[in-house]
Each structure stands twice: as structure tokens, then as C-alpha cells.
């Protein structure tokens, strides 16, 4: 068994004391690429946000395999959750990722500025650094948010539907980028998606979230002919 970066032990998550998911137990190992799949409203985003501490843990416990306050995880939110009223360039958005390990009163410094520029380059957007973030296409914005997550120098990346609302070409580029972080840089990834679809070839494990149940169906090596239980997610079936 590999080293756990995060482990949920009989966890219940919910809002205002009302549980949405109960009895959730699984672990994500270092170097894993986990897809959280399930129909709309099943609780995938709640599960991801719960792991990040954005949704209250009502019961059970979440254990981290690293000091998450000293080295916070990288987080890529749904891009529509950000308000376009903020006048920020792509570079300024990425620079925000370097605040992760920066004490409140310390200046940003040259190293972090270079890190932000490097992360933009890693996602192929160095040429757009000075462009206003809100003028970028959906796919470009998503890559900027991935660069911002990488700028936190995290042990683990959490992404909430990173390919939602982008065209097929941009979707392929984003998936390739995330897969590269996992395969070449050893980054542990947890990603929410409606269905396996194009990410199937990249992911190593799948966690299904459906009707309040959470199951880690495939522990490692997701082959195209993996268990029948994955068939609905592979086909992208959206159950009501």
C-alpha cells in the first residue's frame, strides 16, 4: 500500500448540520490520479470541497499525509465562481497562488514572481501574462487557474470540473496538461467530472458518488475494460 496523502474515515459532510454524504471512507495515495464521478447533484463537489475544508465535516475525520497549513493543496475552482469585476491580469491571478506559503506581511519577492511566470509557462500561456484574465477564452482561463494552483507548489491538486463549458479542443489540452503534471511531475490529482469520457485514459482511480454513496471502485490501473460498474460513467450517462 502506498503513502496516503489524504484519508477520510467515516466522514459525513453537509451544510447547516444537514448531511449530504455520510459514512465516507477512502484514501488517496501519493501519485494517484483520482476522478470523482457521478450524476448532477450527487455530491461530487461537496466531497471535493469537504476534503479541502470548505464544507463542514459533521462526523468522522480527515487525515492528511502532510502539513496542509505549511504546504496547502492546489485548488482549481469552477471558473465561473470568480467575479469578472476584479481587474486582474493572467499573471496577477497566478501570482495569487504563491500566497499559499507566504506569511501575511512578507513581500512577495523575486523567487515567487519567477515561480508565477514559470507556472504560466508550464501551462503554455506565458505570452498572455499581461492580458486581462477576463478577456481570455474559457480554456485559457482554466489553464491560468491550473497555473495558479501549481504556483502554490502543492503536494496535491484538487480540480472542480476543470473541463466544464470549454470546447473539445480546449478540453483535450486541459486533460493533457493535468495528466502531464501527474505522470511527469508525480503530482497527486483529485478531479471532479460528470463522467469519465476523455479523462479515462489519464486517471488511475475512480470514486463514484451517487445517491449518497461514495465508493472507490478501482484502486489502480484503470483499463478500458475495467469493471462493469464503471460503464455508466465511461459512457457519460447522466442519471437524474
Amino acid at each position: 500500500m502506498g503513502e496516503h496523502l489524504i484519508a477520510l474515515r467515516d466522514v459525513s459532510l453537509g451544510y447547516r448540520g444537514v448531511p449530504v454524504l455520510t459514512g465516507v471512507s477512502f484514501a488517496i495515495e501519493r501519485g494517484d490520479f483520482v476522478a470523482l464521478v457521478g450524476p448532477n447533484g450527487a455530491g461530487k463537489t461537496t466531497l471535493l470541497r469537504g476534503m479541502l475544508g470548505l464544507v463542514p465535516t459533521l462526523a468522522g475525520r480527515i487525515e492528511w499525509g502532510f502539513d496542509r497549513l505549511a504546504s496547502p493543496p492546489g485548488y482549481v475552482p469552477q471558473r465561473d465562481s470568480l467575479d469578472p469585476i476584479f481587474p486582474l491580469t493572467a499573471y496577477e491571478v497566478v501570482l495569487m497562488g504563491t500566497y499559499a506559503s507566504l506569511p501575511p506581511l512578507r513581500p512577495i519577492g523575486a523567487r515567487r514572481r519567477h515561480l508565477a511566470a514559470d507556472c504560466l509557462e508550464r501551462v503554455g500561456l506565458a505570452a498572455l501574462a499581461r492580458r486581462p484574465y477576463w478577456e481570455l477564452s474559457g480554456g485559457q482561463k482554466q489553464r491560468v487557474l491550473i497555473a495558479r494552483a501549481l504556483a502554490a507548489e502543492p503536494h496535491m491538486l484538487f480540480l472542480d470540473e476543470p473541463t466544464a463549458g470549454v470546447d473539445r479542443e480546449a478540453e483535450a489540452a486541459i486533460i493533457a496538461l493535468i495528466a502531464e503534471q501527474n505522470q511527469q511531475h508525480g503530482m497527486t490529482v483529485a478531479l471532479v467530472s460528470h463522467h469519465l469520457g476523455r479523462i479515462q485514459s489519464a486517471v488511475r482511480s475512480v470514486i463514484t458518488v451517487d445517491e449518497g454513496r461514495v465508493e472507490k471502485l478501482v484502486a489502480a490501473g484503470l483499463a478500458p475494460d475495467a469493471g462493469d460498474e464503471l460503464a455508466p460513467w465511461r459512457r457519460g450517462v447522466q442519471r437524474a
Partner: protein
Amino acid sequence: MSTLATILSPDFLLRDALVGSVLVGFICPLVGVYFILRRMIFLGVALPQVSAAGIAFTFMVYRLFVGPHPEAAVGERMLGLIGSGVFTIAATLSLALMERSGRERIEARIGATYALAAAVTILFLAKDPHGDAEIVGLLKGDILATTSASLSTMTAVFGAVLIALIVFQRQLLLVSFDRDLAIVFGRHVMLWDIVLYLLIGAVISLGVMSAGPLATFGFLVIPPLTMRLVSARMISFVLGSALLGGVTAFGGFYCAYRYDLPLAPAEVALASALLLAVGTFTGVRRALERWQAA
């Protein structure tokens, strides 16, 4: 030209008022940008009114229980400042704490706060046994009555706010732009909200005492709205708003002095005219760009 030379002369009779006016015009937009970015513009209307209610309340209580306060005494402004500060900060913190709870939208609470503050201001004045033109003048914010002592207070408080905004800028931007990311990074978002609201409260309290609710609201909101139309970066948005506020305050003062106009309406009218001009210019430019691209 001679009016400008008079105003800029070191011996100008209203020099303290001019400097005070420009200070309010410069500092209000620096906190006002957060009203725009957090989409809480109505707060810019409500808080100056709450501040005015605090001034009226303090004077009413003082006069009911202590007696008439010597007119135009230095302590009078301090009394008003205490009332204004306590009311504004209490209201700001209450709204901040309620922001994330309850079923109704934050706009509804701000609207109710404004209505209540306006009503109790009048009631406090009605119950003030010595309520007269002097207190009304304080509520309107008589910048022309600025003394060197009050100017020193303004410089000290606004200077402290300016330093805090510069030092905390990164944290305030993070919790305003992406609250979730701030939480993931382990930041105490409520603490940073409180810091921001305290700074806002300090600026509004002193702004209302010095320049009145109208000028304070105008400078909180209009320069940032203008600069948002032309800014692509935070630094130009924030600094541009402050500079525009300072320049508008000076221009408004010039117009008021030159044409014998009330100061606050002159400043707000000038700031609004600039907003209209910049809005028209950017609108036409974008329409032309779309037309050329088509």
C-alpha cells in the same frame, strides 16, 4: 487663473479646508474600491448615514445628561467622531457577521440599515434639547470649518489607514477575490473581513465628520467606478481611483470657491461628470472596436 493662484497661495484662508477636502477625496476611494469589487455599493450609502446617526446620538445624549456643549470647541468634533466611529464600526461588523447567514440578501439588510439610520438621525435631532443649525452643520459635514487640529487628526487617521491598506493589500485582495482559496490557504477570512471593515469604518467616520455623508459616499464610489472602466490591473485601479478622487476634490473645491457653490454637491457633480465622460468614451470605443471586428 487668479482664483487658482489664490487657492494655491500658502496664505489662503481656507487652506486647511482645501487640504482636508483633498485628503477625503484621496482616501475614500482606496476603501471604496472594495465596495465595488465586493459588489456592496449600497453599503457606501448606508454607512455614511449610520455615521451621521452616531453623531446625532452622541450629541443628544451629551446634551440631555451633561448640558449644552460649548459651540465650536475642539472637543465637539472629538465627541462627534466617537459617536460616528462607534456607530459605523458596530454597523459594519454586524453586517459582516450577518453576511454569511440568514435567508434574505445582504442588499435587503443594507437597505433596512440605511432607512433606520436616516430615521433615527432625525429622531435624535428632534429630541436634542439644543439641536440647532450647528449640529445640522456637523451632520452635513462642514469641511470649511476644518481647523489645523482636525486636519492633524485626519492626517494621522488617514495615514494609518493608508499604511494598513498597503501592508494588508495582498490578504484583502485574496479574501475578496477568491474566498475559498483563502480558506484552503489557511487564512482566517472573517478576521480579514473585520480588518477591512474596521478600515472602512474609520474612513467613513472621519469622512462624514469632515466632509459630510454626500461627499463621503461620492468619493467612496464614483472614482472607483470611473477607474474600473479603464483599468486592466489592480494597481492602476486602486491608485487611479485615489488620484482621481484627490484631483476631483481639488477641482470641486475650485468650482465651489470660484462660483460660490456648496462644496460637497460641487465635488460629487464633478466626479459624476467625469464618470459620464469616461463611460461615454469607453462605450464608443468598444462599439467602434466591435464594428471594426465585424
